[in-house]
């Protein structure tokens, strides 16, 4: 087993696990953290495919902008609504 395969398996597993956490975690901010982790892992996979530019833009656009916009959206909505839905 080469190092490259090992790193690929690690990154793919972290992307998949964090993607699962996005839909399964009970606290909605935790799922945003998992979403960011998923995006970063995908960016690392792009680096492994020697597509560095795509990886940089992925981090720029997704982690730098999309995740923050989603976080803004979550934090500006009323928390009691989500709390009551959970019960």
């Amino acid at each position, binding site marked *: 087993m080469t190092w490259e395969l090992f790193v690929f398996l690690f990154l793919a597993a972290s992307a998949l696990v964090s993607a699962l956490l996005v839909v399964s975690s009970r606290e909605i*901010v935790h799922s945003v953290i998992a979403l960011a982790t998923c995006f970063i892992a995908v960016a690392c996979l792009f680096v492994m495919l020697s597509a560095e530019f795509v990886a940089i833009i992925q*981090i720029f656009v997704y982690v*730098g902008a999309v995740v923050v916009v989603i976080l803004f959206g979550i934090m500006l909505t009323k928390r009691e609504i989500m709390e009551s839905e959970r019960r």
Partner: protein
Amino acid sequence: MNLYEFCYGIIHWLVDLVNNLWYWLGDVLPWVFGDFFDAVGDFAASDSNIAFFTILTEVLIIVIIALINVLNFIWLDRKFMGRMFDFYGPYYVGYRIGGWLQNLADGIKLFVKEIITPAKADRVGFLLAPVIFISSSFLALATIPLGRDFGIATNESGAGVPAGVLVAFAMFAIAPFSILIAGWSSNNKYTLIGGMRSAAQMMSYEIPMLLTVASVLLLAGSFSFSGVVDAQHDLWFAIPLFLGFIVFMVCLMAEVEIQPFDLPEAEAELVEGWTTEYCGMRFGLFMMTSYLRGYIGGALATALFLGGWHGPELIPDPIWFLIKAYTVFVIVEWTRWSLPRVRVDQILDIGWKRLMPLAVLNLFIAVAFKTMGWF
């Protein structure tokens, strides 16, 4: 000789030294583990292992230089503030070197303080936010070379990270995310408001900043730091793109949250902004990282606008780079301690209505220069 070759030489010499001893041990005790000793020695001397430890040494050197610069910056900041406000600044600890050791004393004090996690805090976010903030800042640091041959990015062929400028700004762009997480998970109104303000400010000042960076990259025709700096061999970009330089500096001050734009940690309104609930070394690391971001900002301004490591040959490249970065930092400090804080309703106006058109105008100027064929 570049940094890679220097570290390679050191590591190679060390491995040879240890390996001689190791093989001798294997010869002395052949009846136990002779083959084992040989295998370990061969692994230690293999190319990939030496390359790995070479890069590790490079990282160590760059981080140590950056942390020494951060200590200098904090000291310079406090001394300069003292000079402007008519008091001495740090004075007693390290009396003979102008109170320079005060930072180390503060660091030790923060190390021995108790680390408290608030009971109602969201533990995952509370623990994760400093990690993301600090690691992304250090990754931005990793891309910046102090000289043509002096940076983590320089490998044996002398080439840097592909698109190093973009990597630095992409790593800068991660910070608002961690700040929002820190502000939310502390479960405190002050931190939440501070985090919101910080993220809104950073997101809105990032766009004019990136537009000015785009104009620089357009003139240089390269995404890498060495390409951008080499394009400034005859003329610094601060001269043709003076407007862009001003916009970049203002945006930089907003990005690293210093005085005219330090709304996220306005002491009079929000206790300590988004770091209110952090204590002990976690707060210390946040504060150190914010100064580190100041250092990175000064280095970026130097590399993109002030000709990087170019200068008369008398002084070596990295020293030129640091002189320019320190000058940028002192000018930033000067404005920092002279201006009052911007009001919260003015901050987005300045970003979107003033700086944004100026940045677009600057981009047009750069395009005009490029189409005229002057660069």
